[in-house]
């Protein structure tokens, strides 16, 4: 075991870890002041819940054995392999489990942006646990654990399908099932603390270096390559979002910059270790207009209330990333991609990427419906009362005010 590789994957694990608090601030800054605690808490509780589930069964169900190409088995229940010697996964199975754990934390956390400001906290906790079981572990298995999506030859470097499309699609379905916020469309939903939005976005970018470059599994040339494509796509998307802002209103916004960089990171995620650097500029530059168009034109027509645009950013951005991987991947960069992308003349990979996206969407939709059904069965009402919604979920669900001193006393 090369200690350099261990150093990098340990570091990457810590970097991916900090993304979840980052997300909490990104989301928390975007909601109303009376809901920031609830929004942050929705991510934070998963730092506990998803970690423990992962150690107990998640890693095993994702990466131990294979049942029908769909899910793993329970042989590694409680990380029941020898953590000091097992090297089924590189650089070492236990380290791989730690790194992958961080993905299993942030993915359900991403969903929580969609249902912000109205879902019961207890139902949310219950839902995300079930969803991890029904959707996340199978998908992680199918893509990275030797399951079906790997078998058909589709590729996903760091989680375009597993993390972003899955959470984005789930967000959409859940937002529809849950219904709109009171006064949606009438009331003003503006971010209450924009510096927090940027703080979160910056921590996400920072952590994403571990997310993508760590997915190389070693401190090697591929990791360096993924580092550079990641930064480049984020940068290009940040700029193209600001350009749209400027063209539309003359005023480039910080929320726009933050959103742009995030969708740039989303889009490059499946592609980071497969595509040439120049294509990262294209991938990033295009993801912002695609998401912007979806959020500002398509979404209002469809009329659902995805509060923080999880589907518009992660779903749409992730789908574009998966397609872009099919367009720009090069076998010479990473031979895990068995074929070159469409722009290099071969349609094989491209079609399998489309197929993989389709399957991911199907798994997410079906899994979400099942999880939602179960949660509804077992809890009386998955949504807070109208009165609690007005009062704010911080007080009603958590009994806390985020900044009580700011209009009271010290």
């Amino acid at each position, binding site marked *: 075991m090369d200690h350099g590789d261990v150093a990098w994957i340990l570091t990457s694990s810590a970097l991916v870890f900090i993304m979840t608090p980052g997300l909490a601030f990104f989301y928390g800054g975007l909601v109303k002041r009376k809901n920031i605690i609830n929004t942050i808490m929705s991510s934070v509780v998963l730092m506990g819940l998803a970690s423990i589930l992962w150690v107990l069964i998640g890693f095993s169900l994702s990466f131990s054995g294979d049942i029908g190409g769909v899910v793993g088995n329970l042989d590694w229940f409680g990380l029941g392999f020898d953590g000091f010697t097992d090297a089924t996964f590189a650089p070492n199975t236990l380290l791989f489990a730690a790194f992958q754990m961080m993905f299993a934390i942030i993915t359900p956390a991403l969903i929580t942006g969609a249902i912000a400001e109205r879902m019961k906290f207890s139902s949310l906790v219950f839902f995300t646990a079930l969803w991890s079981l029904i959707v996340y572990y199978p998908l992680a298995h199918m893509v990275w654990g030797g399951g079906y999506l790997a078998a058909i030859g589709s590729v996903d470097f760091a989680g375009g399908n597993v993390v972003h499309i899955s959470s984005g699609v789930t967000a959409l379905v859940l937002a529809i099932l849950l219904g709109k916020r009171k*006064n949606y469309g009438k009331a003003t939903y503006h971010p209450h603390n924009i510096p927090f939005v940027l703080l979160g976005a910056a921590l996400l970018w920072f952590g994403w270096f571990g997310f993508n470059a760590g997915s190389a599994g070693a401190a090697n040339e591929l990791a360096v390559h993924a580092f550079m494509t990641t930064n480049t796509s984020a940068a290009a998307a940040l700029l193209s979002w600001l350009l749209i802002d400027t063209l539309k209103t003359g005023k480039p916004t910080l929320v726009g910059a933050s959103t742009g960089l995030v969708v740039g990171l989303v889009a490059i995620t499946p592609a980071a270790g497969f595509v040439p650097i120049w294509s990262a500029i294209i991938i990033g530059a295009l993801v912002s207009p695609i998401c912007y168009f979806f959020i500002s034109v398509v979404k209002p027509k469809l009329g659902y209330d995805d509060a923080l645009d999880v589907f518009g950013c992660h779903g749409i951005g992730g789908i574009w990333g998966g397609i872009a991987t099919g367009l720009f991947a090069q076998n010479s960069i990473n031979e895990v991609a068995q074929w070159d992308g469409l722009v290099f003349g071969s349609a094989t990979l491209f079609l399998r990427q489309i197929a993989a996206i389709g399957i991911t969407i199907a798994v997410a939709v079906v899994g979400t419906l099942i999880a939602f059904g179960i949660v509804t069965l077992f809890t009386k009402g998955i949504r807070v009362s109208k009165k609690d919604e*007005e009062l*704010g979920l911080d007080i009603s669900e958590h*009994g*806390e005010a985020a900044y*009580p001193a700011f*209009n*009271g*006393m010290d």
Partner: protein
Amino acid sequence: MVISMKKIEAYIRPERLEDIKIVLEKYRLNGMSIMQIMGFGNQKGWKEIVRGTEVDYNFLQKIKIELVVLDEQVEQVVDSIVETSHTGEYGDGKIFIYDVADAVRIRTRERGEDAIK
């Protein structure tokens, strides 16, 4: 000159503000000010449990609305606020009414009732 304007000060639940605003727009009032305050009344403060220890919030977060209107509008406006803010539970708030001695619209330098028309 007899000035026939009144100032209405309403202390209400923050969560009612959106609705009050919509109702008041009906009367084409052309001005209103709001501020965040802390209040206490018959509705007592809430308790927060910090690490197992109760801490009191003696004061609750409220919104204060200030509205200067013509005498003849007072009852309508007061009724609207009551209608929208009433829940029947402690903490619904209070409205106080005061005489106004004079008014000035800075933009036009109009004085008296013209300033708020």
